């Protein structure tokens, strides 16, 4: 296997791409890379398009190298990566829907985000008028005794819309096929031409539960493009918000998974702790979800003096209450009966798909952007990256529990070591096109943002890749052979984002 840097040297290096390399390659190198991905070298971080070009972000986990290769395709076609490396199938279908670029030999060219309601074909490409809608062809599963169950897009709980098509034999799921794209808002289309402020606002609304992670990833990508630093205090405050967001979401998830297993007591207690985290966030930063607080150049609001006391009180309360909740989870046999051995994700699949977050780390993939890429201030903080290999619902609960404990410790460390000083720096226009990329660890996994700024500082192209892109397909694999009644449990243990995926 060649080193990633050798791959980039094969192509023409693009100037002003930070902090890593982007290289324009020929179709042979592009196809070679697809083959390497298929053989398990490197991890596909993202695959996106723009008019006349496709881009692929790659990671070499062993050497912590990251970079982008691009292929110009003036004919509107490119060698499919998905035909050899399945994680690329859905991104390639999405690129086809949005830009009309055709992945050659991709076995599945059904529309993905385009449900035929936009009134236009290839809205970010040529934008032709749309033909009449034809029904979506779900994959077939034939055999005696099989029946289909259609669920969604409007679901029973307070959750996002998506469609699940189950084929079952009695209670046992033979095949699940997801159909997503219902919440597609055209965010990447809105990004183009937007100023940095508006673009940061849009980024913070890609997936509401990860608003801090997205604002952070976007800001870091913009700062990498403009080669500007951020005041030290802002760096630490960003991490404080990121860890509070992780804690709130993990609490919500642990409770909700137990609730879906019929154990409402955990849900009630986790809900109380989650509310306390949100209230501490509001007292400290003026917003329960800390939305629009991270901006390119720093943070929009400094930590409120009373907020510090509030967060310290919160860590004490949680330190007292959380261990007892974990005992409750660990010692309730009827609950474990539902979570242990349910929805097993094999480590090979987690690795192949580069599954981030608790989905990957419960199935033996130890990647955590905070540790592997060591972006500040995590280079000077002490924390573990918990890892399990069982891959079942139970393991995904335990990873959240252990990560929650780590985040609690990180919050304390950040408060102890928080530097003084300004929280926001100036942003100067570059006067020339600049590109940047950032990978940030959200609660759900790594969020990727890649962008190109025009000379006047507006967004020329911005791609935001949710961790869910590489987790949703695995849910289909995980549910196979489980009973229909365990689907909510498996689904909640993944807790993929619909909005983050649909964009």
């Amino acid at each position, binding site marked *: 296997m060649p080193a990633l840097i050798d791959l980039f040297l094969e192509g023409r290096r693009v100037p002003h791409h930070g902090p890593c390399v982007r290289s324009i390659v020929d179709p042979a190198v592009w196809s070679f890379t697809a083959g390497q991905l298929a053989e398990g070298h490197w991890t596909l971080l993202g695959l996106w398009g723009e008019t006349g070009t496709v881009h692929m972000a790659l990671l070499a986990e062993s050497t912590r190298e990251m970079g982008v290769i691009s292929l110009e395709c003036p004919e509107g076609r490119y060698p499919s990566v998905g035909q050899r490396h399945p994680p690329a199938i859905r991104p390639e279908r999405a690129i086809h829907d949005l830009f009309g670029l055709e992945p050659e030999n991709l076995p599945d060219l059904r529309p993905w985000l385009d*449900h035929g*309601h*936009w*009134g*236009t074909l290839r*809205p970010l490409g040529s934008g032709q008028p749309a033909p009449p809608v034809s029904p979506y062809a779900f994959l077939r599963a034939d055999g005696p005794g099989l029946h289909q169950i259609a669920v969604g*897009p*409007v679901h*029973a*709980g*307070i*959750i*996002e*819309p998506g469609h699940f098509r189950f084929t079952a034999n009695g209670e046992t799921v033979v095949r699940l096929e997801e159909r997503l*794209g*219902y*919440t*597609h*808002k*055209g*965010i990447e*289309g*809105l990004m183009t031409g937007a100023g940095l402020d*508006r673009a940061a*606002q*849009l980024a913070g*609304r*890609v*997936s*509401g*539960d990860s*608003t801090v992670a997205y604002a952070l990833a976007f800001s870091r990508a913009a700062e990498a493009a403009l080669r500007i630093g951020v005041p030290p205090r802002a760096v630490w405050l960003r991490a404080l918000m990121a860890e509070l967001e992780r804690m709130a979401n993990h609490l*919500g998830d642990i409770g909700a998974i137990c609730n879906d297993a019929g154990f409402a*007591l955990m849900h*009630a*207690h986790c*809900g*109380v702790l*989650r*509310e306390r985290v*949100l209230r501490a966030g509001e007292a400290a930063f003026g917003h*329960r*979800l800390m*939305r629009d607080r991270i901006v390119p150049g720093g943070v929009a609001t400094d930590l409120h003096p009373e907020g510090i006391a509030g967060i310290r009180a919160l860590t004490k309360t949680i330190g007292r209450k959380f261990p*007892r909740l974990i005992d*409750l989870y660990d*010692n*309730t046999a009827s609950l474990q009966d539902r979570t242990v051995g349910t929805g097993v994700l094999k480590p090979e699949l987690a690795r192949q798909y580069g599954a981030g977050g608790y989905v990957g780390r419960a199935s033996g993939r130890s990647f955590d952007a905070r540790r592997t890429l060591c972006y500040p201030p995590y280079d000077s903080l002490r924390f573990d990256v918990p890892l399990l290999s069982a891959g079942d619902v139970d393991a995904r609960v335990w990873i959240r529990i252990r990560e929650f404990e780590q985040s609690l410790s990180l919050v304390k460390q950040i408060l102890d070591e928080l530097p003084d000083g300004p929280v926001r720096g100036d942003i100067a226009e570059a006067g020339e096109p600049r590109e940047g990329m950032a990978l940030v660890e959200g609660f759900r996994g790594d969020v990727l943002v890649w962008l190109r700024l025009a000379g006047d500082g507006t967004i020329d192209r911005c791609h935001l890749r949710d961790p869910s892109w590489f987790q949703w397909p695995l849910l289909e694999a995980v549910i196979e052979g489980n009973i229909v009644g365990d689907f909510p449990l498996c689904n909640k243990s993944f807790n993929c*984002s*619909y*909005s983050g995926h649909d964009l």
Partner: protein
Amino acid sequence: MRNFLFEGLIRPPLTERPPAPSDTAIDELAAALDRAVRKRLGRSLSIRAVDAGSCNGCELEMQALGNAFYDIERFGIRFVASPRHADVLLVTGPVTRNMREALERTYEATPDPKWVVAVGGCALDGGCFAGSYAVVGGVSEVVPVDLHIQGCPPSPTDLLKGLLALLEQVRT
């Protein structure tokens, strides 16, 4: 588990109750909502949540209504699993073109009398997503809306206030 249940019996509730008439807005709201709900619907109001394309921020705060601090069920308000059981549709998000039909069909499946509450800035006019090729706009572009609750996202307290306003409107 026994300890948890036992403590639940002896500890005071976390639920924020109305101590005096002129206390916080949420507590005033609690009493008024209770009266109004009882008059119109005999102590119960069933809500069906529909995400018509939101970023899921509004959903998080709607879920929070069920926690011990807000405990929305004490007012007889509950979230139901089907529009056929609902009195109120709580709709979030800019309505995406891909969700338009699902929203219309959910509305049609809800029996009369019914009310629609549009939750969040996006549900008012599309918010920061207005003008996109993939977005219809606010909820009122697709189904008649009785009330907008603003915020990005509205806090659980804002949501409670909004539901009260709806009930006042319904009563007159």
